[in-house]
């Protein structure tokens, strides 16, 4: 069985979801109540791959909401309790979605292995970052040519380059995509220098320096509320892959000739009978989901019960190849540009 640990994108959304699912008491509760609310296993689903394999899974809501980020102990407890619930339900592989893996990593929860009477077995959990990184790279490779961007001549900026996903994207773009130049952007200088040294290429720039030069921008860092993008200075066309969380780039970079794709999102080939993705603001909630969630499904389809994506900067190309091949085999497609921008589709319609 696979598991997904998720949460709502805001407290307001969490209350709406609770109402929709018939948890009226939760819908009416205040934030303090939610801080004490235990995780809930909300849904069980069955998913069948085009290969014919059927798997079963469960969705666990940690009852965390981003408004709790400033409460260290609450955020930590939400993540650990949700993981314990997954393990107690004997779920073999569970993806840590949304802020869950970020909290786990940034708060160093590896040292919190004992939760009450349960010793957490790390082998049962995956961040899903390998699949997310692979999907983002595929989104670059498939959509840049549609906009007339020749990747062999293109400059690609990776914002958040030193993170787990960002560094994997950089490795793939360098080795597999054959882009003209990689622009490396991150907050801290030292990890950037180390990444540049590992890659043997890439130019370290500030965000302000990188954006006007980039034909493609991969965002794998969330944008501060205050960030504004000078869209007039951007290249035309410019492809932006919004791989941050939450996904709010489309409002910040809306301009003629600037094309934003929700990054790290995949679409399954048929409807999944679940309600959970509706609150994650997916255009097709019955089929679309975060690639990290899909990684748990892929690992279950493939019978790989291990923490496939774990820790920081452990994603290599071989793992991306493996999860990418599984992703295609089991019917997942990376989200692309809207159909009106696809010449082939327009021709077909015409």
């Amino acid at each position: 069985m696979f598991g997904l640990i998720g949460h709502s994108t805001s407290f307001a959304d969490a209350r709406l979801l609770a109402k929709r699912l018939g948890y009226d008491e939760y819908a009416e509760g205040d934030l303090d109540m939610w801080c004490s609310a235990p995780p809930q296993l909300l849904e069980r689903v069955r998913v069948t791959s085009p290969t014919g394999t059927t798997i079963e899974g469960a969705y666990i809501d940690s009852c965390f909401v981003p408004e709790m980020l400033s409460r260290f102990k609450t955020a930590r407890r939400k993540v650990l309790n949700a993981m314990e619930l997954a393990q107690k339900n004997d779920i073999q592989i569970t993806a840590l979605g949304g802020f869950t893996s970020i909290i786990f990593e940034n708060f160093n929860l590896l040292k919190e292995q004992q939760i009450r009477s349960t010793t957490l077995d790390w082998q049962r959990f995956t961040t899903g970052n390998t699949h997310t990184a692979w999907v983002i790279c595929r989104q670059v490779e498939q959509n840049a040519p549609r906009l007339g961007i020749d990747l062999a001549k293109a400059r690609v900026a990776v914002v958040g380059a030193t993170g787990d996903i960002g560094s994997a994207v950089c490795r793939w773009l360098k080795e597999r995509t054959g882009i003209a130049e990689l622009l490396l952007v991150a907050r801290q200088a030292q990890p950037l220098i180390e990444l540049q040294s590992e890659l043997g290429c890439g130019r370290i720039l500030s965000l302000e320096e990188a954006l006007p030069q980039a034909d493609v921008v991969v965002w794998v860092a969330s944008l501060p509320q205050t960030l504004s993008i000078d869209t007039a200075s951007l290249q035309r066309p410019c492809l932006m892959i919004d791989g941050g969380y939450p996904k709010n780039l489309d409002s910040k970079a809306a301009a003629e000739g600037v094309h934003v794709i929700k990054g790290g999102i995949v679409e399954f080939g048929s409807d999944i009978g679940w309600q959970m993705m509706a609150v994650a603001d997916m255009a097709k909630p019955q089929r679309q989901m975060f690639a990290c969630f899909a990684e748990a499904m892929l690992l279950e389809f493939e019978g790989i019960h291990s923490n496939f994506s774990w820790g920081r900067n452990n994603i290599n190309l071989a793992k991306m190849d493996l999860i990418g091949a599984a992703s295609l085999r089991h019917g997942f497609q990376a989200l692309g540009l809207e159909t009106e921008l696809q010449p082939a589709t327009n021709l077909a319609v015409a």
Partner: protein
Amino acid sequence: MPTIESNPAVASLATGSEPMGHAADALPDFTCPVYKDAYSRINAIVIEGEQEAHDNYMALGTLLPDQADELARLARMELKHMKGFTACANNLGVVADMPFAQEFFSPLRNNFQTALGEGKVVTCLLIQALLIEAFAISAYHIYIPVADPFARKITEGVVKDEYTHLNYGQEWLKANLEASRAELEQANRDNLPLVRRMLDGVAGDAAVLHMEKEDLIEDFLIAYQEALTEIGFSSREIAKMAAAALMG
């Protein structure tokens, strides 16, 4: 999932600008008068809780004569726990405030006694084997990381036993769910708000011991929800039943 390198809320947490929590950085000063004063009440609650548990299991034996031996065995364990916790107070040189604890438990005790008088096994089991046991388990779990070394060892032993007691009530109610459902739901409505009031009432003293109310409530609900799940209630039914503990 994506990183949040530039998210200021998490960036500040990641750099440790937020306290890491009591458990992670410091134990309380077990010798200071403020600690001992709070401990006198918390310890008394624990001792009284174990005494009541003993009495309640013995009383349940009168309603379930075929299980009287097993219930007497559980009751004996509770007395052993009580002695352990009494030793914890002695170790710190604290005198447990028993009148406070007896008053603290009186609403639940009254409800138990009323149900006992009416021969309501289901209500009695809900009060003792689910609510009180889940309350104890959560409190002990939260207490262990911040306990003095002597009490820590004793509490670790006790918490293992308490799970078997929770399990007892859970198994009985599971086997008799359909006949018990309505009474269980009513007993939950009548008694869960009392547990929440008890948690609120003890929050100030618990905080002195570095046990936080938010942790206590969530841990209690996890234990209680697990028991209700095992008994056979659905997630939605449980969320409805548990809400009384969250609402305050």
